[in-house]
Structure formats: C-alpha cells, structure tokens
C-alpha cells in the first residue's frame, strides 16, 4: 500500500514537500503549451466529476502518425495542471505508439510501480510527479490529462477519471 510505503521512509511533511515541489508549482502557475490549438487533428476532454476539474487536449498528428504539435486548456488543481503541462513538453515529435508507451510509464510512476519502461530522459523529466504516489486520493488528478490525451489519440470526445 502506498500509505505504508510513505510511512516507511518519509514523514508527512517530507511527502508534502515532495508533492508540492517548486517545479510542480511553477508548472501549475505557468503552464506550458497552454491554450487551444487552432489547427488540430485530434482533441478530447478529460473530466473528473469528483472535483469538477476539466482539461482539453489538442493534437496535430501527421499522416505518418507523428505528433507535430500539442496543447492543453482547462482548469484544475496544481497537480492536474502541472501534470498536463509536463506531458505536453514530452509529446511533440513522438509517434502515437510512443505516446501510449509514455503514458503507461507515467501511470506506473504515479502509482509507485515499476517504471523501467520509461526512457531514462523521460523518467528524469517526469520524476517530479513521483511524489503523487504517496497520496492515493490524488492519483486521479495526476492522470486526468493523460487519459484525455489517450482519448484524443483514439479520436474520442472525452475521458473521465473517477
């Protein structure tokens, strides 16, 4: 259980400091790739009905299945906005298959599971989100944008995390 793990090596204050570290707060205050993409081929909205958070993901995907551009829009908590912002930084230039693999690695990271699937440079970039694993109630916040991204890849209109 993530709770036990937290008790094992971190105090609550440490966990909290790790959750709300400077990089996360910076991304939540100044999200990157924020705002709708006028020209996009794929779009989906993620909605967490529990807290009302909404995030829209826009993607421009070329005929070879490569993500040429990506952005997000919406309102949410620091964790969900930072997560979306960090995600958009990684997706540009990736293929659809690579984006899906990246998502798998990210989900593992925030659940405190094995992340050997992640490329070392990706893991380094996303490592700031690892603190979420000590807060099981907040994992949904961190994964909202990723689920919306996956729905957009599949051309679906919306994603939900409950």
């Amino acid at each position, binding site marked *: 259980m993530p709770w036990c793990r937290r008790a094992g090596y971190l105090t609550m204050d440490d966990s909290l400091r790790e959750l709300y570290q400077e990089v996360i707060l910076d991304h939540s205050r100044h999200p990157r790739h924020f705002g709708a993409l006028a020209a996009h081929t794929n779009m989906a909205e993620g909605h967490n009905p529990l*807290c009302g958070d909404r995030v829209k993901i826009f993607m421009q995907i070329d005929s070879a299945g490569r993500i040429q551009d990506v952005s997000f829009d919406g309102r949410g908590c*620091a964790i969900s906005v930072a997560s979306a912002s960090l995600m958009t930084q990684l997706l540009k230039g990736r293929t659809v298959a690579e984006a899906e693999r990246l998502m798998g690695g990210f989900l593992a990271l925030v659940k405190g599971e094995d992340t050997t699937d992640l490329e070392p440079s990706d893991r380094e970039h996303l490592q700031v989100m690892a603190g979420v694993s000590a807060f099981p109630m907040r994992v949904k916040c961190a994964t909202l944008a990723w689920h919306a991204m996956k729905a957009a890849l599949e051309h679906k209109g919306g994603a939900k995390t409950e």
Partner: protein
Amino acid sequence: MIPQPVSKDPVYDAAALRRDFPILATRVNGKPLVYLDNAASAQKPAPVIDAVEKFVTREYANVHRGVHFLSSAATEAYESARDRVRRFLNAAHHDEIVFTRGGTEAINMVASSWLAPRIQPGDEIVLSVMEHHSNIVPWHFLRERQGAVLKWVDVSGYGELDPGDIARALSPRTKLVAITHMSNVLGTETNLREIVRLAHSKGVAVLADGCQAAVHAQVDVQELDVDFYAITGHKLYGPTGIGALYGKRDHLKAMRPWLGGGEMIREVTQESITYADPPMRFEAGTPPIIQAVGLAAALDYIDTVGRERISLHEHALTAAATRKLKELNGIRIIGEAPAKGPIISFEATGIHPHDLATILDSEGVAVRGGHHCAQPLMRRFDVMGTARASFALYNTAEEVDALIHAVVQARRVFDNG
C-alpha cells in the same frame, strides 16, 4: 420550541464531550485529528455505539413479523425509535414519521410517490440555487420524465435567501416548493416558517431538506407548518443507512406506495392488492432496524447535551473561525448570511480546494474540498469548488486555531513554493 433539558453545568465542556467519541483520539500523520468535515458526516458517541451493541446482543430480530419474544422486543425498540424521531421534530403523530435509508431517499420518496402523480407537463417546482443534489436531481427526474419545469430562486452574494423571492417565483402552476432549511455549503439557515407561510397562502406545499438544519437548529415541524421534512441519521451522530421523512398525516395518507414488498401491504391476492396505512406503506421490506435504534440513541445524546447549548457553542466556533480566516491574506469566505449554521466555505486565492485539503490533511485537519454536491451553487458563485470546514458539538477553540495554522501553512507552500 422544544423544551430543553436544564443543564446542571452552565459551562459547555467540549473536552469532556470529546471523550464520548472514541474516534476523536485518532492521530493523523502524527498529529491529533482535527475533524472538521461534520457537514459530510458526524462521528459517533459511545452511547450510540453501546445502544447498537446492546440491541444486537440482547433484543435483535425482525420486526412486525413474529410473535416470539425477540421479535416483539425488536418491534418495540423500532417503534420507540420512531417515536424518538417524532419527539425530536415535534411532529404531532407517530404515523407521520417514515423511516428511510437517509435524507436522499426521503426526498426521492416525496418526488416519486407524492408529486409525480400530481405533475402535468408545464407544472412548476420552485427550488433555490443552494440545494444539495439530493434536493435537485429528484425534481430533474420529473422534468425529464413528465415535463415539469424547475424554477430556480437565487441567493444574494452573501448567500441569503429572501422568502419574497420564493413568493415571486410562485405561479398558479407551482406544485411544490423544495427548499433547504440549511445550506450544506454556505451554512445559510433559511426562514422556513416564512417560506411556508407564503407558499401556503398560494396553496402550495413545501418540502424542506433538513439534513443539515436538524443537526444545528431547533426544528419544530408543527410550528414551521412544513408539509414534508427530510432528515438523515449519520449527520446527527447516528448510524448510516437511516433517515426519516416527516410528512403531514393527510399528505402521507394521499401518497402512493414507494417500494413494493413485504410489510407495506394489507392484503395481496392473485388479482389485487391493498396497501397498509402510513408509515408502513412506505417501508417495504426489512427496514434498517439496528440503525433506527442507533439513531434514537443519537437523538437522546443530542438532547442530553442540549440543542440550544450545542448551537451556542458551534456558533461561537464559527464566529471565531470566520474572524480569523478573514484576517489572513487571500482567503475569501463564501456565504455570510446573518442566520447561519456552523459551516464555513472558503476559497484561498490561487490554491485549488483539493490542494488545500491535501495540505490541511497533512496537518491532521480534515476538511472537505470540492463542489459539495451543489454544482449549481458553484456556478452561481463562479468557483470550481470550495474548501469547507464544518463544526460539531465536540469541536474546540484549539481546533479552530489548528485550522487557521494549517491554512497559513498552505499559503506558505503555495506562496513561497
């Protein structure tokens, strides 16, 4: 007004009362639990826990069915719990109290068994923007299924509800006013007596959602003259899975059954069926017997402490917390009606309510962050959600300080990052 038991001790001793609630000794993240999520559900005192244990170890059986000793003891306990609820609300008659699974079921029962057969397309239901979803969705059902029209009454920027606005929303097509007696978000206590008077002058019945008000205010359904009043046990320091609907005798008699099953019938044949009288008509199947006994013990507990004293204590905590929150930078309180229960919704600029609740939790302070099942109200105040601290009879001035300290910590995390 309901007579209050006279207290021998004029000093309200919250610290002593806390010892009645075993769970309050819990430590969270190495810190003492500061439980301020009482509007969502209240903790249970030992007398409730003991009453349940005593009942299941000595008197338990199904009710209204057997002639044997235990069945008779259980029936007696169940029916005396009903009478306990009657006294709590000061209803005139025993048969005006229907046990339900909670406040939600009580309201749904009125929507489906009383109002639905009376609704023609275009008929109107008046409600306020500060209703809990459980006093919204059942009326939406009637809109979707039968063409009822929902007429929404706004509140002021302070969260006050003007009974005159309710009166102005009434029309010859109004079939019901469905209104909260106390908002679970803003804390606003509505002037139910006046709303009922105005509605009755136009021949319109009133259902009040008393899930919060019954916990913090004095409720006398006869004085209020309200037609239906819904309460829920778990917020009243009682068990989950139990609530009650008060309905005026004539309304209940005119109401069609709710669920069908055992105990709610008079006679069933292959061709036809006749129904039991209220309240049994609305209590199909084996009811929440154990929970009813627990609820009765909870109401005893509340009245032993004294409703007026509890309310004074909670008001003092609310006033102190409100004042101290306002002294902090970047905190906005949502809901400052003059008549207000111990519920404080607030926003911290730049901090999402979930982030705030997470940081407060790390200080052992349990508050609720989110939309509180009141999305129309969130839209009305243009917020995604709020943080909500709500007080109960066992909260203390030190806990108010713990809340303030934790909010300052949150500001620190976000401002200095």
